[in-house]
C-alpha cells in the first residue's frame, strides 16, 4: 500500500534561517506531488506541484522553492525565512485523476 511521510512534524526557526522540509512517498511510481500551506486552520494555498523528476511548477511567487530530486521525493526549501512563512505545510500526492493523499503536516513557526 502507498504511504506518505512528511517531516518534521513541528519546527521553530529564527527569521533569516534556512528551511528544508522533506516529503517522500512509498508504494507508487511517478506520482504527482504537491506542497500546500494552510494558514490559521483554514484554506489551503497551493505552493508548488510536480508531475515528474525535476519538473516544478510554482503557483505563488514567494520566499520558498521546491525540488524533486527523485521520483518520490519532494523538498520544500527557503534560503532565508520570513515571519510570514509561518504556517502549516502539507505535502500530498496523487495519480492521474485520483484523489490526493496528504501527509501529516509540518507546523512551522518562524520567530
Amino acid at each position, binding site marked *: 500500500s502507498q504511504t506518505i511521510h512528511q517531516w518534521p512534524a513541528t519546527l521553530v526557526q529564527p527569521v533569516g534561517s534556512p528551511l528544508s522540509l522533506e516529503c517522500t512517498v512509498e508504494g507508487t511510481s511517478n506520482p504527482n506531488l504537491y506542497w500546500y500551506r494552510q494558514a490559521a486552520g*483554514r484554506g489551503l494555498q*497551493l505552493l508548488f506541484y510536480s508531475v515528474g523528476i525535476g519538473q516544478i511548477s510554482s503557483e505563488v511567487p514567494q520566499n520558498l522553492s521546491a525540488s524533486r530530486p527523485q521520483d518520490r521525493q519532494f523538498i520544500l526549501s527557503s534560503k532565508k525565512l520570513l515571519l510570514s512563512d509561518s504556517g502549516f505545510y*502539507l505535502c500530498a500526492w496523487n495519480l492521474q*485523476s485520483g484523489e490526493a493523499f496528504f501527509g501529516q503536516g509540518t507546523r512551522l513557526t518562524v520567530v
Partner: protein
Amino acid sequence: AQSVAQPEDQVNVAEGNPLTVKCTYSVSGNPYLFWYVQYPNRGLQFLLKYITGDNLVKGSYGFEAEFNKSQTSFHLKKPSALVSDSALYFCAVREASYGQNFVFGPGTRLSVLP
C-alpha cells in the same frame, strides 16, 4: 478557472441528527469532486469522490455526497451525526483533464453537539 465555494463557515448539529455540509463548484469542463476531513494539527483525510457514474457516492465513516450537475453542487451528508465527526471539512474540485490541480474550498467547521 476552477473555484469551490463552501457557503457556511460553521455548521452546528445535534448528535444523532442528519448533517449536511454544502459545496458548489465552477469548472469549464467535467469536474472531479472530492471531500476531505481534517482534525486539529493533522493532514487532510480523504472521505469520498465523484469521478463519473452514479450521482450519489458513498464514502468513509458513513458519509455520502450527491453530485448535482445542474446546480453545480456536491453536498456532503450523513444520516446520523456523531460527536467524533466534529472537524474541518474541505470540498475540492479538479478539472477532468490530466495535469490540472486540485482547488480546495475554504473549509466548513462542523460541530456536533452531544
